[in-house]
């Protein structure tokens, strides 16, 4: 490994009342891939913002190519070759790929009108595409690209700025397995070109896959760094939470009962030629695995009445029911916790209490009006039960962390005695501690007889939490697995459409 070109020494950052970073040091050598891990709130993002020049540290030094400063400005960070690939991509839907890569730096024809030289623009973009092995053209409209492809566009943008260090904030959180694999290859390609990578992630197997080094932050302090040879999920988890994470799986108190929800030959808009059949039994967690785009979310939306069911039937306790609106599903005791928490699950600038009561307001009535005292009381009870960390139930949901927001969505349904709970990506963007609490809550629910269908793209979660796994592939069930058959290999096989 060559000399580091970038060094953070003793970086601290404190906000009134809280220390976000406490004497953190980090050195980056050319071509090095560093995984930055830690629970939400550990200070990962703040540290990266210091590197990007967005946050000014309150103490410490930053050394770039031997020049020492107390802080970077955004311009200095860019000049030093530091580029960000954001979690929420900063791209323009109405432009094509090349237009996005060179936004603000478009090659122009001479003349007073400064018209864009499209030919030169595309010619400059093509080599970048080749370098990443991207499968789309420079003039492809961005609107038609998948999330993974957009991410590549962001990386191209970084490369076009001669980036020496690319910082990625949870790059794989919404990618499918194959897309993640491709991103890993892109990272390897960048590394081969001498570009350094720092990536923030919650997924430890990715760290295992591609990191040269894992740096673990906890409560604003660097608690350890693991070299390639020392990397293991157990070691990382131990550092992250400061204790050993015991096996995720908690067996149910009683064997599963009869089927509660039967999905019979269900057809959705996305895969009009395919039908899905599965049953979720009383007291079990059925994991629904599969690649993103295999039709799992669409199935959940159809069962919950958001999208129309194009064929087949839904049975609850053996009786066929008609679900044409979410209201109908809710009235039957079938609840969905959607994948898109912020867009579909919550009213972000509304209080915790009002979010929780929203689906069930009619049970808070007193003379036709909302009984806010009862609303607050119930919300407080839920906050207690789910350990929602918030000053009060009048706190707006938008100010909570991801894990606590997810708990609020869960709280909406818990007070309504669910029969069936469909949980789409229960812990996306949720930190390790809150994850564990959500899993425990799922098990407590099934032990009271609730049937849970858990859609998840997180392998650790599917295998660690489910009592049984159904795998979808291109709009149909490709197989079921019992606990004895659980393995990453088996799930993957089914997810890509092979038999086990």
């Amino acid at each position, binding site marked *: 490994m060559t000399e580091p070109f970038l060094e953070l020494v003793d970086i601290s950052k404190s*906000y*009134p*009342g*809280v220390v976000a970073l406490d004497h953190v040091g980090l050195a980056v050598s050319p071509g090095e891939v560093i995984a930055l891990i830690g*629970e*939400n*709130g550990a200070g990962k*993002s703040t540290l990266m913002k210091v590197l990007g020049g967005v946050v000014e540290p309150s103490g410490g030094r930053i050394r770039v190519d031997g020049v020492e400063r107390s802080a970077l400005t955004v311009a200095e960070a860019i000049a030093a070759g530091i580029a960000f690939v954001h979690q929420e991509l900063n791209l323009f839907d109405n432009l094509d790929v090349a237009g996005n890569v060179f936004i603000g730096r478009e090659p122009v024809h001479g003349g007073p009108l400064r018209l864009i030289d499209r030919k030169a623009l595309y010619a400059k973009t093509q080599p970048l595409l080749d370098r990443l092995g991207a499968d789309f053209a420079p003039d492809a409209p961005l609107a038609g690209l998948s999330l993974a492809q957009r991410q590549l566009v962001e990386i191209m943008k970084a490369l076009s700025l001669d980036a020496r260090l690319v910082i990625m904030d949870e790059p794989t959180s919404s990618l499918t397995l194959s897309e993640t694999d491709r991103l890993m290859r892109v990272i390897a390609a960048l590394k081969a070109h001498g570009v350094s990578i720092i990536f923030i992630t919650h997924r430890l197997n990715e760290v295992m896959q591609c990191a040269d080094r894992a740096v673990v932050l906890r*409560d604003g302090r660097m608690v350890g760094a693991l070299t390639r040879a020392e990397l293991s999920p157990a070691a990382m988890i131990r550092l992250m939470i400061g204790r050993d994470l015991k096996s995720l799986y908690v067996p149910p108190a009683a064997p599963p009962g009869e089927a509660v929800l039967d999905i019979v030959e269900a057809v959705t808009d996305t895969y009009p030629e395919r039908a899905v059949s599965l049953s979720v039994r009383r007291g079990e967690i059925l994991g629904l695995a599969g690649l993103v785009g295999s039709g799992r979310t669409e199935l959940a939306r159809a069962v*919950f009445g*958001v999208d129309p069911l194009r064929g087949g039937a839904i049975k609850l306790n053996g009786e066929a029911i008609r679900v044409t*609106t*979410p*209201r109908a*599903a*809710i*009235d039957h005791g079938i609840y*969905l916790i*959607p994948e898109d928490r912020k*867009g*579909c*699950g*919550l*009213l*972000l*600038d*509304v209080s915790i209490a*009002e979010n929780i009561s*929203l*689906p069930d*307001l*009619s049970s*808070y*009535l007193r003379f*036709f*009006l*909302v009984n806010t005292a009862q609303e607050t009381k119930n919300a407080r009870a839920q906050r207690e039960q789910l350990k929602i*960390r*918030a*000053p009060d139930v009048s706190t707006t949901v938008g*100010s*909570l*962390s*991801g*894990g*606590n927001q997810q708990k609020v969505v869960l709280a*909406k349904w818990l007070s309504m005695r669910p029969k069936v709970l469909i949980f789409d990506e229960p812990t996306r963007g949720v*930190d390790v*501690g*809150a994850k564990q609490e959500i899993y425990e809550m799922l098990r407590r629910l099934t032990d009271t007889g609730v049937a849970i269908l858990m859609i998840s793209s997180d392998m650790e979660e599917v295998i660690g939490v489910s009592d049984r796994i159904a795998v979808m592939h291109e709009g149909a069930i490709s197989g079921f697995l019992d606990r004895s058959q659980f393995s990453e290999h088996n799930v993957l096989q089914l997810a890509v459409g092979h038999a086990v």
Partner: protein
Amino acid sequence: MNKKDLSLLVLILVVGAVVALINPRFLYVGNLSNTLNQVGMFGIFSIAEAFVIIIGGIELSVGSVIALLGVLFIDLIVNHDVNWMLAFAAIIASGLVIGLVHGALVTRMHIQPFVVTLCGLLIYRGAARYYTEDATAGFGFGASFPTLEWLTAGRTDLLGFPVPHSLVALIVVAAIAWVLLHRSVFGRYLYAVGKNEEAARYSGIRSERVMISAYVICGGLTAFAAILFAMYTRSISPAVHGSFYELYAIAAAVLGGCSLRGGEGSIVGVVLGTVLLQVLQNLVNLLGIPSSLNFAVMGAVILIGVLADQYLVQRRLRVSAAKGRTQTSLAAAPLEG
């Protein structure tokens, strides 16, 4: 009453005091009573507009509806000898139907509310002019509806102050709307749909119904205002009657804290917004400002008000962000990012 409403009230008092100082006639009983009469009529359709704005929509046909339904109302009772109570009911029903159509076009046909109601604005205005052949509709000599007139345009003496009945109507409407919006389940649904329709739907709210209801309420209240205006002016030139009223309504709603993105606004605020607009109108008359500058004054004051509000909000956010960081970090130290 929230902070926003309070600052609006302060603004009204300041403007009122300034006008009163320059021209004491502002505080004359006659002038105040007339201004409050205007507040009553304008307030009712401003509340109507607020319902639609809160669900994230917009209603541009308010003025045209007031012209068309006003013309129809006068025609029914004057020329067709329809019992006024029957006519009253028919006009309110027409307003409800107009709202239903607008709501259905917006929710079922997925046409943008701006477009739907802009077409409404043009269509109803045209219909009103065609119906009367562009002539003025009014009460002929001797035509007299004492009860109706007393109810709609009359005034009742209260401790020597003639309280206009339109103001009483506004107070009743505002009280009901306040309970509906701020205390009832339906109100919660309105705000929820306005803030995030998708999340509302996922919580089992039939958002289309809620949105249609908002347009229907708006139509019904606008029809009520149309009758009040018809009885107050007693003659309607369909080409100009009620024109630009939708903009008064939107202005009052915005002054009253409604966001055009939906999900925000209070009834108290909308009423205060109406009061401010009417005081400004009055100011132009009383201070001898050329009446051609009427709109310019109103526009300038609204702009200044919104700018000042924005400034205050930003400052408050900065202050509470500094404070909030300490608070949340104490409360949720292990998890806050």
